[in-house]
């Protein structure tokens, strides 16, 4: 029995990978900030903690509320409402700090409320619309639509690179 061997060309290989990627479903943690729903890759979330006293750090930008210690580790806390230049209503009882891991370091993200985890395929994600205001655009990695309870919902995916890509200098 002779079997014909076909070697995968680079093209077919890439196609197959695309295919696989499209089928893989990505988990996104969704949360509300300033009345909008945002999401970040669930794999970057380390834990979700209740609001606690945040120690203010002088000379830091306003969106950086200060630092907290979680399990012995000190991390900066970013107020996402201020970072994304959204309205900042009073924080309610639902407010949480998301502890995210980014480039080997932990950060806290202050959000109004945690919604849940949604899974979708990569091909359900659209690039951010060009019409967005320039102040918000750099923070967005894309927009995903997904059906829930017979309705189409939308979540704005945040780019942690952009949100956490700040440095404080003298």
């Amino acid at each position, binding site marked *: 029995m002779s079997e014909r061997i076909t070697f995968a060309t680079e093209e077919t290989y890439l196609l197959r990978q695309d295919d696989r990627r499209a089928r893989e479903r990505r988990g996104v943690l969704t949360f509300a900030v300033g009345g909008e729903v945002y999401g970040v890759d669930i794999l970057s979330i380390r834990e979700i903690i209740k609001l606690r006293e945040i120690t203010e750090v002088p000379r830091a930008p306003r969106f950086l509320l200060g*630092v907290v210690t979680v399990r012995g580790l000190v991390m900066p806390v970013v107020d996402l409402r201020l970072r994304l230049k959204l309205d900042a209503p009073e924080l309610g009882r639902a407010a949480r700090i998301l502890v995210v891991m980014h480039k080997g370091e932990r950060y806290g993200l202050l959000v109004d409320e945690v919604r849940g985890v949604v899974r979708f395929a990569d091909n359900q994600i659209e690039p951010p619309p060009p019409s967005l205001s320039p102040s918000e655009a750099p923070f967005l990695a894309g927009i995903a639509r997904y059906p829930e309870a017979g309705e189409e919902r939308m979540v704005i995916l945040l780019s942690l690179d952009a949100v956490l890509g700040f440095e404080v200098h003298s």
Partner: protein
Amino acid sequence: MSDSPTEKALQEFLSEAQEIVEQFNRDLLALDEQRAAGAFDPEVINDAFRAVHSLKGLSGLFGVTRMTNLSHNLENLLDSLRLGRVELQPATLDLLFEAVSLFNRIVGETAAGGSGDDGANLVEDLIARLDRVALRKEASAESSPWGGWELDASLLSVLTEYEEHRLRENIKSGRSLFRIHAAFDLMTIDKGLDELKGKLKPIGEVITYLPSAESANDQQIELDVILGAQAELRAVQEAVVGTGAVVALLPRAKSAADGRPSAMAPAASATTAAAGAATTAGKAAKGEPKRIEREEEELTLKSVAQTVRVDIRKLDNLMNIVGELGIARAGLTQILDRVKLDKSQTKLARELHHELRSLSRKLDELQAGILEVRMVPLGQVFDKLSRVVRKISRDAGKEIRLGISGADTELDKLIVEELSDPLMHIMRNCIDHGIERPEARKAAGKPEAGTISIRAEQRGNHVVIQIEDDGRGLDEQKLIKKAVERGVVGAHEARELSRRDVHNLIFLPGLSTKDVADEMSGRGVGMDVVKTNIARLSGIIDVESEPGLGTRLTLTLPITLAIIQALVIRAAGRTFAVPLNSVLESLRITQADVKTIERREVMSLRGQTLPLARLERLFRLERDDLEGVPNKQFVVVVGLAQHRIGLLVDELHGQEDIVIKSLGRALADVPGIAGATELGGKKTVLVLDVAQIVEEAVGAGGGQEAA
């Protein structure tokens, strides 16, 4: 994160490579010293050879080709040195030291994940130069064959090149050659031979051992050991008494210089001959490369069994956990206090108290234990320094004697790492600016070679490092002139500066180098950078100088940064921790004690004017409490390096042992904040960076007005 097995293995390889390079460096330093003394130990060259050989093997495994190539070519050169084909010249040593730097660079670049293309050229260049030296034909060795010893051709034909070289060396240094004939049982030959060598070692150098042609029976092997020793036949015989070995002095030709008749020597049994001489430094040289490899394996096994290499981050993590335990302990103590209040629970309270006390003690021991593990000897940096001093002084055409004491003084690994740059800068300054040219020194009646001494010692919780040179000292007039030119000091003020103040001018940016460096090597490094680096380690630097006699820099450093004592204070409604090692004293004052000079707040403390600083003003904090500044206040006097200021605070909350934690990459550079720490009750408190605050407070007023 990068935790894949290969990554981990690579890290391990890099740290091992670094260790080997450091060992290699030490070998070279020893050789340099011995060369200057006129006689070197062949074993040190062998050690260096082994180090490079291990590097070659290791780097080959990990595909670090540049390192493999460099090691391979170094091996060639070291082999030539071992065999006496090349003489150990200062220039050759320079090349070897250059290789050390290059190795370090390759390790650094590999660690950083780069392939470092620019480094490749350097490697090739060095290899080319190494080869040139390695291939240079030696001059003299061939000319005087065997110094009058009658050596059998069949012996000479079986000697390895190395053994032949050692033989020549021994003859050259006028030692006698002996042949020791011994029989060993086939099963125990290794042990027997080692035992024999052990007995011979104290009197001479075992040059080689060869199987004897006169085989007695199948169960035994007979060997002829060839020994070189500065000893009489009788002494050698006594040394091997009880082993059954037969010693013979090798015959000399009639023409031998000392005219000893060859008849005196028992005739060697024609088939083998022996040669020998005492080693130059008492250690027997090891044989051909095969044997060297075997020994190297043993060495590696031994070191693995006794030490463990640990990533410093793992220790940081342990330290973290200990810190957490400390907080838990504080919590338990509070519970105990509550239990004590309940009179019905006295027994429980007593038991709890008892357990808590032993927990406390063990926790302290654990903490001390981890701190101790982090300690490394300062010698690690000093080794690097001697290499640098050697190079700089050669470049500058000055002869420098470097004296080091206290190399075994231990400091936290992190501090030792951070110290190497500042110390290097200081050395460079000493050599470039401090030590005069040999002619000038001679004219001043000083020895031509300049002396730099580094002394380290532990004093309580600090380590003091003093660097002293016997150079020309600081040029006070020039310093003042520069300071006035740059507007750092007013012309009027300048006249009133104390000598100490004048000396401390070298720590101001832009003052120490420029002008002075131009006329010297042009390589001056700002002492301001040194000061900043030392201050970052919570250290203090001080300078004393005597014109014409020399300069002394004194560095005072905390032993560890991991756990420090801190004074907890409250200012502007916030809590801060101030590292206690920079707190000089704290006092209680009233608003009336605060005066202003040119709108800056000061107070007088024992007749001296002390500038005051308010954290809320420095950090632009808004006061939470409406009543404003309370009338009664505290002043925490802090001092670092040359300056001291008083911090005005509202409350003192006492001392605590704290673990300083970084605020993370994003906030690492916030001026005035060194980090954060967790106090009881999940409270995160910022730790002040006193050095920066002092700098800022002093810089904001003092200097500027003169400009």
